[in-house]
């Protein structure tokens, strides 16, 4: 069989170990698939979405209720976005807990981390585009957090929301960030990240001499596995979209009105929970930044795994990195859970 275009995106063959579900969880590949679904459904939504405060929430209602298959497309976009954050997080944890960040993959680890942050921001801006009353907390509190940063806070706030208040012009800013600025950044980072995967020798496995399993699989088998994952993920996405529609709310009339019950988007629940403890700069900006910094330092300051231990979960030689990431994960999960139940 002659390899087609899609086969050529892959190496002719790879060690079988690199493509084991139980090792990679398929998370990186799923993230690429979800990003493609997001791009496709997002472009379709752009035909109907109006980034204008007076019409935004209503144009979403039009998409959801009146455009043929509009509801399905929007739900697919919504669920792909939520799953992308989840799957990217799982991918990050997989890399940390298998020690795959070790040289020569340090730089790609940072690229991936940057991509993860970019995707969270893109999810956040997309959430704001709903412009209904349920996003008020995120809009007002989230943007006000920027202001608390000493020195450059006000400047950051103004370039983010396009004015002194998070209102009319903010929607257009968020729209442009969502569909252009952040997507451009994410696309560059994603392609670079994928390129670096190949440049760094594929998915982390022990050097050939230390590999217990010398089997290799061809690009044909690899593509088949990817297609299988995409088919299952596609079906799951469609079923999720049918049974759990994306939230739709009442248009914002006054963005300054934040109700007590207002809840942050799920991926920021942990920050919202910390904000209840006091100083918004400390809990809302500094602590999350320290978390991010800790993650970024993992390939540099924590114990590195032995090359022979690559390709398996929880290599003993990199215990300190696993413990650090485990604690961060636990803190974020517990805070999110508290935010969800309070």
């Amino acid at each position, binding site marked *: 069989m002659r390899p087609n275009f899609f086969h050529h995106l892959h190496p002719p063959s790879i060690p079988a170990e690199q493509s084991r579900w139980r090792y990679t969880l398929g998370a990186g590949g799923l993230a690429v698939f979800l990003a493609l679904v997001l791009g496709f459904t997002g472009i379709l939504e752009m035909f109907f979405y109006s980034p204008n405060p007076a019409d935004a929430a209503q144009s979403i209602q039009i998409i959801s209720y009146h455009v043929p*298959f509009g509801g*399905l497309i929007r739900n697919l976009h919504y669920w792909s976005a939520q799953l992308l954050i989840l799957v990217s997080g799982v991918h990050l944890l997989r890399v940390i807990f298998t020690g795959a960040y070790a040289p020569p993959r340090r730089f790609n680890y940072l690229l991936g981390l940057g991509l993860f942050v970019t995707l969270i921001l893109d999810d956040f801006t997309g959430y704001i585009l709903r412009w209904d009353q349920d996003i008020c907390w995120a809009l007002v509190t989230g943007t006000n957090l920027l202001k608390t940063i000493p020195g450059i806070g006000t400047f950051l706030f103004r370039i983010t929301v396009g004015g002194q208040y998070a209102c009319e012009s903010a929607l257009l800013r968020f729209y442009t960030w969502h569909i252009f600025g952040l997507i451009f950044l994410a696309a560059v980072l994603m392609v670079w990240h994928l390129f670096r995967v190949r440049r760094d020798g594929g998915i982390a496995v022990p050097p050939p001499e230390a590999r217990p399993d010398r089997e290799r699989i061809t690009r044909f088998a690899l593509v088949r596995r990817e297609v299988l994952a995409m088919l*299952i993920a596609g*079906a799951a996405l*469609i*079923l999720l*979209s049918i049974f759990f529609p994306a939230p*739709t*709310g*009442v248009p914002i009339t006054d963005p300054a009105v934040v109700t007590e019950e207002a809840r942050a988007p799920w991926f920021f629940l942990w920050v919202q929970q910390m904000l209840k403890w006091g100083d918004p700069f400390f809990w809302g900006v500094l602590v999350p930044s320290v978390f991010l910094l800790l993650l970024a330092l993992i390939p540099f300051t924590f114990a590195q795994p032995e090359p022979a231990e690559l390709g398996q979960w929880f290599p003993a030689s990199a215990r300190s990195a696993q413990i650090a990431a485990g604690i961060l994960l636990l803190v974020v999960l517990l805070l999110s859970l508290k935010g969800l139940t309070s």
Partner: protein
Amino acid sequence: MRLSLFLAAVLLVIALLMAAWVENRRPQALAVTPSLTGETEFCITCHADLNEISPSHPVETFGCVICHGGERLALDADLAHSSMRGGANPSDLSVVSESCGGEQCHSGSPAEARDHIQRVQTSIQATYAGAIANMRYTYGAQPDLNAIFGIQAVQDSETATGIPALAAFDPTQENNPSLQTFAENCLYCHLYVEPLDRQEYTRFTGCAACHTPLTDHAKQDGIPDDVHTLTTAIPYTQCNTCHNRGNYDLRSMTFTERADHPTSRLEDYYQPIAQFTQCEYTLDCVDCHTRQEAMGDGDIHANQKDIEYVQCQTCHGTLEALPAMQTLTDPNDLAFRLAFLNPVINLALGDTIIVTPKGEPLWNIRLLPDGSYEQFGKATGHRFTFRSVMGSNCQQNVDEQESHYCHECHAVER
């Protein structure tokens, strides 16, 4: 592997077919683009069976959203209803200005008689000022019967009654426990509040308290479609939801609810000492009592008797004078508008109708060529005729013309 791929492809196809099936099952959206807003709304997708609320609010002109609020585009009931004004009742006084207000609607100029909302909010039925003042006076909380408090704070910048404002009555500020008991037990028949839970009392709040009369059937079955009605043909039964609920026992200072279901208007009316002439228990309340009496005249009044002014003589005149009358010469006369809203009478230019001393048209009463009058029941459409006192055998002193003097001869034995 090939089998897995095949099965996964089948799974995807099934999911896609399900999506198509769900899409196909969605109800056909039905749209109305009311001329007043020009904005398409889809409420009738589910509410196509609902009757038009009144001939003066045709759905193709008003639609639903201009009064009810709500999400006009949503086809999901929860979202569509989530931003409705006043729940099912947009005429609740907390939202009435947004729902029913507007220069061309019900908060326009007094000169065009379009100031219903302003008048109602200062009216005694909304402020309950008389009852509050009486109770506070009785229990020593104020030295006289002046109106100080209303249910809500209201202001009247051009007062003709000398009451420029009422503060909101706050029972928690009262020292006398009886006043707190009064607030707990008795404040159930003003326009802001839901009535007590009993079929005889069932009514809406706000404008709909009177203008959406509820039949027994409607009360029993909750909120069926025939509740979606606004009318000026208000039967006495609707007034009775407040005005025939029971009696206050002065010895125990408690309110005793009626235990029976009143059937005879004459026998079952609640005040044992009240006297009634035939027209008072035959006609409906709104056949004599006017818009200003019921909905206020724009001024804040201290109690009910200050706003009630229609007497027997308003229609019957006195021995020396006929009732005040007006011959209709202007096709834009308010009388025609009111007769259009409730077409029990076929008023024509040149007809002579009775007007009250304050100039309000009694548009359902017309002078006949023989000098007698015909009156059409606003709620019943029944035709009645009556004569003026002038020229009759009545021997009443000309300076004793209030209704209670008429009752002395004309009241029916109860």
